[in-house]
């Protein structure tokens, strides 16, 4: 009996370009150069052509892309965080307090909030580094909600009112390009980091933490470093948006900042960072575009989410990557 079967075959250029670069035509060079250059060109051009409302959307898209990448990075080390809002909120409050109350200029408080925020988040999560799987996730889910209530109950940092009148960037272009460059930097830096020996060790912790421990590596110290890296990225997002809105308050710890990055990374494809990037650039503008239709927005948005997850469980990026690197054909085989 004859049967049809789908075959996947690497494209000739892909097989060569994976390791050894012997590219012998302009077309082949484009094949290798276009994927990394496309997001760079896109992000550099977009702030020039978008109307001002969509520029704000671009900013929040980049912010969610960054949060999604930091989430993806933590997952790669075996820590499934449900609380990127923790990183976001801590960074936001540090930026707000140091700018408004201490009077530091933006160019000092932004890096300060990034590093200090990463540090504080790492310290907050250090006691639960030993927890694995869902137990770690639960703590990360609760922590931002707890901090939110502490701000409310203690009335510190403006309490329920928040802090207003935080300085904005000089002009919209500086604003856009700061976030664009940080997003691109994070994208390529993360993708590079996971291929280094250091990144390999982090990945190994997710695969089999006992085996990593048994060769003399302190996995808790490594996990703390990973948390610090992810925390810095998340805190930067918070600090940046604080300056965009001129406001910081309890909403900075909102669940949105935990859930949307997660869904971006899942829809886009986990473990690649480019997937988080692609996912955020689909979901965030989509949610903005649906604003016009009122109450049905959430229904449609959820429908899209379910559709992507069911139709493309591997993630959009993995799908595109596969199509780009391989061709498929049906062949007849004997059964």
């Amino acid at each position, binding site marked *: 009996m004859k049967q049809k079967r789908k075959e996947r075959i690497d494209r000739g250029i892909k097989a060569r370009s994976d390791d050894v670069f012997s590219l012998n035509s302009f077309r082949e060079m484009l094949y290798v150069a276009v994927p990394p250059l496309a997001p760079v060109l896109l992000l550099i051009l977009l702030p020039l052509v978008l109307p001002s409302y969509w520029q704000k959307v671009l900013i929040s898209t980049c912010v969610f892309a960054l949060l999604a990448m930091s989430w993806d990075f933590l997952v790669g080390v075996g820590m499934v965080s449900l609380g990127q809002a923790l990183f976001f909120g801590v960074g936001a409050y540090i930026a707000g307090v140091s700018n408004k109350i201490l009077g530091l200029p933006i160019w000092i408080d932004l890096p300060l909030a990034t590093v200090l925020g990463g540090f504080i988040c790492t310290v907050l999560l250090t006691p639960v580094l030993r927890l694995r799987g869902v137990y770690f996730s639960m703590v990360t889910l609760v922590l931002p909600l707890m901090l939110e209530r502490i701000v409310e109950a203690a009335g510190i940092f403006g309490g329920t009112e928040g802090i207003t009148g935080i300085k904005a960037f000089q002009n919209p272009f500086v604003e856009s390009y700061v976030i664009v460059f940080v997003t691109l930097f994070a994208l390529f830096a993360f993708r590079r980091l996971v291929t280094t*020996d*250091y990144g*390999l*060790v982090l*990945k*190994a912790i997710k*695969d*089999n933490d*006992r*085996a*990593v*421990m*048994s*060769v*003399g*590596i*302190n*996995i808790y110290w490594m996990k703390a470093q990973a948390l610090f890296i992810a925390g810095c990225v998340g805190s930067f997002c918070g600090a940046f948006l604080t300056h965009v809105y001129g406001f910081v308050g309890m909403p900075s710890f909102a669940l949105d900042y935990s859930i949307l990055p997660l869904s971006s990374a899942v829809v886009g494809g986990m473990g690649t960072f480019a997937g988080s990037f692609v996912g955020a650039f689909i979901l965030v503008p989509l949610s903005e575009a649906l604003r016009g239709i009122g109450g049905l927005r959430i229904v449609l948005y959820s429908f899209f989410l379910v559709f992507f997850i069911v139709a493309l469980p591997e993630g959009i990026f993995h799908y595109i990557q596969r199509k780009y690197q391989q061709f498929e054909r049906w062949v007849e085989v004997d059964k």
Partner: protein
Amino acid sequence: MSDQNNHQKDAGLILRVENLSKSFGGVKAVVSVSFDLYEGQLLGVIGPNGSGKTTLVNLITGFLKPDQGKIVYKGKEINGWAPYRIARIGIARTFQMIRPFAELPSFKNLIIPLYSPRVKALSGGKYGDLDAVAKDYLEEVGFERESAVTYKSAGSLPHGYLKRLELAKCLALRADLIILDELFSGLSIAELASIVPIIEKLISEGKTVIMIEHRLRELFRIADRVVVLNYGSVIAEGIPSEVMERPEVRKAYLGSE
């Protein structure tokens, strides 16, 4: 034994286990186990299933904390230390259930031990090109140089190669005491024939080895000494040919075969 004699023997002592006990709830997994191990020896630990062999390994390597007793390695008391600290002073182990870093190519699996602070310290604080070093170690345990198997993802390796990969991890760590937890299980005669010389070479290089084993015939050929466990206690200790003759050992272990 006279004091002087004791002192002389202590010179080569690498590991001393004293009255080690561990229980899980009501189950006594290890009950006051004691033994000494000297440099360059190969000690076999045998016993029926559930006799506490793997628990003993987990106690020595820090994955479990003993309820009682002492573990002294090269004069340092190490009971209660975290696993990574114990590995850093030169105790390496393999796992009974082998879970390699499945998505990584075989040679990349060795990057993890090569990245450890112990190897960094031993090689003068520099990491260098780990990939090349990793391939050297793989060749030592029988991965043919530049063959496809070195580059295949570890998850797709056949069982025999996985066992060798585990052994290579211990080599890469440059450990002085290597604990092999059922390394021989599931290997064919041909695979055994190629892996035994590697262990013999380790001993000739001055390493000390503890082997937890069920494959007695192969173990007895290379072991200097054997400790027999049953229900967590040591029921016999001595050179392999002697231990096999003891009635209590036959009853507990060999009799069941």
